[in-house]
C-alpha cells in the first residue's frame, strides 16, 4: 500500500509569499512605464519633435540611459525576482531562506534602481559644480557622480557595491532551498542556480574591472564580455528556466525531453561566456579572440535549437491551444522571436556583415527584439497567468489582454524590421563616404516608423495596466477547500 501513497506536500501559502510576488510585479511595471516613456522621448528627439527640448535634466542623452537601465534592472530584474519567488519554492518544496531578507532585498533593489536613475539624471549637473571639483581634488577621489562609462553598466560607481551586495543576498536567499534539494534536479533549477552565480560574477566583472583594474583595449574586451554576458548569463538562463517551468504546467504535460534541455543548459554554460568580444570586431583586440567569439556565437545557435525543438515537441499535436491560451501564446511568440534574433545574431557577427551594420540602427532593432520581443513577452505571459491568482480576481477584460498581446507582438516586430532596414541604409551611406548629415536625413522616415511602432507597444502596455487596475477593483473570486498538507520543508 505504502509504495503508491505520495507524501503530503507543503501548503502553497507556506511556500510562496504571494504579496511579495505582486509587489515585485508592480515595481517591474512601474519601471517598464518609465523606460518606455524615456524610449518614446528619445524616439521623438530623433524625428526632431522632442517636446522637452532644452530641459537639461530631461535631455535625451540622459534619458537614453534611463531607458536601458530601467528595462534591465528595473523591469526585467524585478519581474524575474517576482517569478523566482513563485517558482523556486514550488520546485524545491522549500521556502526561500528568509522572508525578511526577501523584503529587504526588494526595498534595497528599488533603492539601487532609483539611485541609478537619479545618478544618471542629476549626476552630470552636480558634477559641474565647483564644490564637487574641489572635493575631488582635496580627497583625490573620483567624483564622476553620473553614469559610469561602461555600456549597460552606467550605474554610477557609488551604487555598484550596493548592487553587488544585493546580488549576493539574492543568491543566498534563493540558493538555500535549491542546495537543500536532494536527488536529480529539474532543468529550471539548473538554470536558476547558474544565473545567480553568473549574474554576480558578470556584474562584478563589468562594473569593477574596467573601472579599477584593467584599462584600454583589455578593459574594452571585458566591457564586451559584460554586455553580452548580461544578456546571456543573467537574462537568458532566468528566461529559459522560467519557460521550462511555466510551459509544462500550463500545457499540463511534461517537457518533451528533459535530457535535451540539460544538453542546452550545459551548452549555454560553456559556449556563451566565449562570445562577448563579438561586440568589438575590427578593434585592436587580438584576432584569435575575435574569431573565437564569432565561432562560438554561431555555435550557440545549436544550443538555441535544442530549446526550440523541445518546446515544439512539447506542444506538438496541441497547436489549437495557442489560439485560446494567451500566456502560452506570449511564450511561443517570444520563442519564435528568440529564434529569429539568435539566427540574426549568428549572421551579424561575421566580419563581412559587421562591415556594413556596425554602429547602425540594425543593432538597436536586434536589441529591442531580444529585450522586449523575447524576455519582456515571456514576462507578460507569466504576469497574465499569475496576476488573477495573486490578486484573487479574474481578468476584467479579455479584449484588453488580447490588445496588449497584439500591439506588443506586432509593434516590436515592426520596430525590428524598420530598424534593421534603417541599419542597412545607414551602413551603405557611411560606406559611400557621404557626409554624416546625409545618413541622418536618410534615416528620418525609418525613425518616424520607429516612433509609431514604439507608440503601439506603449499603448499595449497601457491597456495591460488599465486592465490590471480594473481587475484589481473587481470582485474577489471564491477559493477553495481545505485539503491535507504537510508543513513546508526547512
Amino acid at each position, binding site marked *: 500500500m505504502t509504495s503508491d501513497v*505520495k507524501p503530503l*506536500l507543503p*501548503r*502553497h501559502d507556506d511556500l510562496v509569499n504571494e504579496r511579495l510576488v505582486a509587489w515585485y510585479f508592480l515595481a517591474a511595471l512601474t519601471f517598464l512605464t518609465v523606460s518606455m516613456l524615456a524610449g518614446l522621448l528619445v524616439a521623438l528627439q530623433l524625428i526632431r519633435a522632442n517636446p522637452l527640448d532644452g530641459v537639461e535634466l530631461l535631455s535625451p542623452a540622459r534619458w537614453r540611459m534611463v531607458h536601458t537601465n530601467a528595462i534591465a534592472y528595473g523591469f526585467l530584474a524585478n519581474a524575474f525576482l517576482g517569478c523566482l519567488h513563485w517558482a523556486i519554492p*514550488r*520546485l524545491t*518544496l522549500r521556502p526561500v531562506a528568509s522572508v525578511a531578507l526577501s523584503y529587504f532585498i526588494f526595498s534595497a533593489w528599488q533603492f539601487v534602481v532609483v539611485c541609478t536613475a537619479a545618478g544618471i539624471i542629476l549626476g552630470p549637473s552636480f558634477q559641474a559644480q565647483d564644490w564637487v571639483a574641489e572635493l575631488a581634488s582635496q580627497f583625490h577621489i573620483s567624483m564622476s557622480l553620473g553614469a559610469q562609462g561602461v555600456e549597460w553598466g552606467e550605474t554610477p560607481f557609488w551604487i555598484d557595491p550596493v548592487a553587488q551586495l544585493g546580488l549576493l543576498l539574492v543568491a543566498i536567499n534563493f540558493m538555500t532551498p535549491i542546495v537543500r534539494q536532494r536527488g*536529480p534536479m*529539474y532543468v529550471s533549477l539548473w538554470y536558476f542556480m547558474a544565473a545567480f*552565480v*553568473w549574474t554576480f*560574477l558578470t556584474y562584478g566583472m563589468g562594473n569593477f574591472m574596467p573601472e579599477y*583594474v584593467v584599462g584600454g583595449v*583589455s578593459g574594452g574586451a*571585458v566591457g564586451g*564580455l559584460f554586455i553580452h554576458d548580461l544578456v546571456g*548569463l543573467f537574462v537568458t538562463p532566468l528566461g529559459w528556466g522560467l519557460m521550462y*517551468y511555466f510551459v*509544462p*504546467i*500550463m*500545457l*499540463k504535460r*511534461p517537457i518533451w*525531453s*528533459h*535530457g*535535451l534541455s540539460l*544538453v542546452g543548459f*550545459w*551548452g549555454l*554554460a*560553456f*559556449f556563451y*561566456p566565449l562570445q562577448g*568580444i563579438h561586440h568589438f570586431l575590427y578593434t585592436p*583586440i587580438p584576432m584569435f*579572440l575575435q574569431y*573565437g567569439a564569432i565561432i562560438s556565437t554561431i*555555435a550557440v545557435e*545549436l544550443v538555441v*535549437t535544442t530549446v526550440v525543438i523541445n518546446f515544439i*515537441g512539447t506542444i506538438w499535436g*496541441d497547436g489549437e491551444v495557442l489560439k*485560446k*491560451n494567451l*500566456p502560452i501564446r506570449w511564450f511561443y511568440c517570444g520563442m519564435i522571436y528568440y529564434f529569429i534574433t539568435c539566427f540574426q545574431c549568428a549572421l551579424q557577427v561575421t566580419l563581412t556583415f559587421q562591415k556594413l551594420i556596425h554602429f547602425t540602427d540594425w543593432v538597436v532593432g536586434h536589441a529591442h527584439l531580444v529585450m522586449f520581443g523575447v524576455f519582456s513577452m515571456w514576462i507578460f505571459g507569466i504576469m*497574465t497567468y499569475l496576476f*488573477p*491568482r495573486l490578486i484573487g480576481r*479574474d*481578468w*476584467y*477584460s*479579455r479584449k484588453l489582454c488580447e490588445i496588449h498581446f497584439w500591439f506588443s507582438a506586432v509593434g516590436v516586430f515592426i520596430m525590428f524590421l524598420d530598424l534593421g532596414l534603417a541599419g542597412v541604409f545607414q551602413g551603405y551611406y557611411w560606406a559611400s563616404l557621404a557626409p554624416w548629415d546625409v545618413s541622418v536625413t536618410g534615416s528620418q522616415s525609418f525613425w518616424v516608423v520607429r516612433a509609431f511602432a514604439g507608440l503601439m507597444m506603449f499603448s499595449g502596455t497601457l491597456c495591460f495596466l488599465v486592465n490590471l487596475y480594473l481587475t484589481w477593483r*473587481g470582485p474577489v473570486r471564491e*477559493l*477553495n*477547500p481545505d*485539503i491535507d498538507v504537510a508543513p513546508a520543508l526547512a
Partner: protein
Amino acid sequence: MNEPNFLPEDAFPGNDDPPRKKPSPTDEAKSARFRTRLTIVLAVLILVPSMYGFVGKFYEFVRIYRGDWEGSFAIAPMLNYLLASGGFLCLFFWATANRMFHDIEEPKHAMLDNEQRLDQQLGGKP
C-alpha cells in the same frame, strides 16, 4: 465590458478538458527512441565543440602567460571566462558523480506531479 472567468476556461485548459488520447505503447516506444537519439546527436554536436572551446581558451591562456606579447592584454577577459567555465566544469563532474543525470527524464514527471498537487489545494484552478 466585464467578461468574467475567461482565463480559467480558456487560458488554463486541462482541469475540465476531456483527457487527451493516450498514444499506444508502440508509438510511445518509437517516440522515446527518437527522443534519445536526437538528444545524443545534439549532445555530441554541442558539448564536444564547447569542450574544445574551453580547452582551446585554456591553451591560449597558457601561451599568453608564457610570453606571447601580441595577446598579453587579453589575459583579463580570458581569465574571466576560464574562472566561470572552470567552475561549471567542476559542477558538471560533481553532478555526474552524484548521479544527477541518472534517470534523466524523471524530474520532469515529478515536477509536473507536484505542481498539479499544489494547485489542487486551490481547487485545481489557478
